[in-house]
């Protein structure tokens, strides 16, 4: 069953008619972790705000839990949890007070659904008397997640929960999401970090209000037609410049400690590129087949 279904969803802002979301369609199944992956300005937040009934679309339709986002907004709000990108709890209430407040608003108690948040809440419990505004970034994030979960929603919307968060806290956060998934909660999450894409069941790669590709991370990776290599040399700066000068090479860009070299399926051979690099005076060349990542696919889509 589709828990979320968006059809031709469109959002246009202001008198300048800026199209933030341009005819986006997708579905999310029950218990899925679905990722909207893309940079600022891709339209991720606008999509979340329409699905959470906070913004009206200019065009298109969508349902959440089988309910229409325009007609049934009141019911939808009871069944979803939403964690906006900007910290939006009450900074002058304590951790405990925030949690109680959100439980009460949704007509429940912390005790009733404590099982669901227990794993996360025990990490911030030592600070339950502290004001939310005085928490560190990682703790704010955990509290916000608890508040979004306290009424036991069917669907959870997380807008860039890990932006600006260090790699250790990011990893912990994704482990929490995996545990929530086992409880049957459907999760829509957005992120600008490409390495988080593989942690989702399915992803939509987004840019400027449109979906460039939508599939499982592995299927997106498998679809890349090009041959991809990881290359190192004594002087990495020269290596990149030299590769970029050669127009027979489809693409070359830094990738961690290597440069990724993209060769089209029927184009120049890797051997030819290696001898070209030697001719150009590069030394200590290390050349190997690269493991394709979602980031490589995204770069390819952006360049098309």
């Amino acid at each position, binding site marked *: 069953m589709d828990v979320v279904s968006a059809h031709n969803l469109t959002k246009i802002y202001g008198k300048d008619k800026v199209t933030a979301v341009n005819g986006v369609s997708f579905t999310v199944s029950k218990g899925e972790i679905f990722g909207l992956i893309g940079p600022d300005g891709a339209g991720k937040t606008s999509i979340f705000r329409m699905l959470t009934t906070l913004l009206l679309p200019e065009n298109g339709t969508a349902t959440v839990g089988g309910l229409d986002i325009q007609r049934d907004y009141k019911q939808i709000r009871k069944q979803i949890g939403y964690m906006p990108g900007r910290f939006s709890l009450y900074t002058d209430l304590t951790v405990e007070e925030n949690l109680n407040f959100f439980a009460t608003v949704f007509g429940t108690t912390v005790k009733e659904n404590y099982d669901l948040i227990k794993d996360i809440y025990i990490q911030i419990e030592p600070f339950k008397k502290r004001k939310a505004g005085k928490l560190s970034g990682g703790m704010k994030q955990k509290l916000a997640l608890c508040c979004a979960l306290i009424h036991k929603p069917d669907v959870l919307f997380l807008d860039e929960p890990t932006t600006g968060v260090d790699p*250790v806290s990011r990893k912990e956060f994704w482990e929490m999401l995996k545990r929530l998934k086992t409880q049957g909660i459907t999760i829509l999450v957005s992120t*600008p970090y490409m390495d988080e894409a593989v942690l989702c069941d399915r992803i939509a790669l987004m840019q400027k209000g449109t979906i460039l590709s939508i599939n499982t991370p592995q299927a997106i990776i498998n679809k890349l037609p090009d041959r991809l290599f990881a290359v190192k040399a004594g002087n990495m700066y020269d290596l990149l410049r030299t590769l970029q000068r050669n127009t027979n090479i489809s693409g070359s860009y830094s990738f*961690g400690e290597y440069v990724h070299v993209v060769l089209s399926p029927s184009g120049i051979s890797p051997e030819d590129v290696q001898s070209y690099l030697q001719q150009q005076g590069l030394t200590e060349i290390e050349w190997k087949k690269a493991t394709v990542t979602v980031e490589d696919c995204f770069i390819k889509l952006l360049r098309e």
Partner: protein
Amino acid sequence: MAEYVIKAEKLTKKFGDFTATNAISFEVGKGEIFGFLGANGAGKTTAMRMLCGLSKPTSGKATIAGFDIYKQTEQIKKNIGYMSQKFSLYEDLTILENIHFFGGIYGLNNQQLKSKSKQLLHDLDLEKEAKKLVSGIPLGWKQKLAFSVAVLHNPAVVFLDEPTGGVDPVTRRQFWDMIYEVAHHGMTVFVTTHYMDEAEYCNRISIMVDGKIEALNTPSNLKHQFNVPSMDQVFYQLARGAKRIE
């Protein structure tokens, strides 16, 4: 021995009985790209503020481009560039006005301002957009412009505080191309980031945990030392033991 542009020795900053930065020592060479990593709350921002001459250390020593961070903060400010994701440009000034404003602050004369801004607009392919307000241009352009403005006066060091948040992978790489370019011409780059693939682009990296530098080396030596395949795992091994959660 290489020429050191940044030298820090047992640099310490205490706020009351809280030691934000705890006796950190390191050197950064001319033209080096130095990655300054650490978990949220590890003390990076405090350290960076001291190095920029914005905050007086509690103890320890440091020099930037040969200037003392206790006594010569004004000279330091003239010899460094600074860019952060949070603040870099005035949104309600045009692109050209921003260039002139920052160039003027850094003491460029009219003739220099004119030629530098022309060159900069050309390099960034922003000639047609020069009269647009910064608030209306895409984030990727803003970041490239902010960086160019921060190095307009050709400082000895440029400090970049999480410069590439929120942009797409292509724009992020174009940004790093600019970093490589200035480093290639001898500028020292001091950068913080949460992207571990960017850590790999640095010549050397330090990782701070609870106010101390717990590791400092080249990315490949660090991976070797911790016997893991990625910087992500090096970071994880060091930072997961952090006690400090503010």
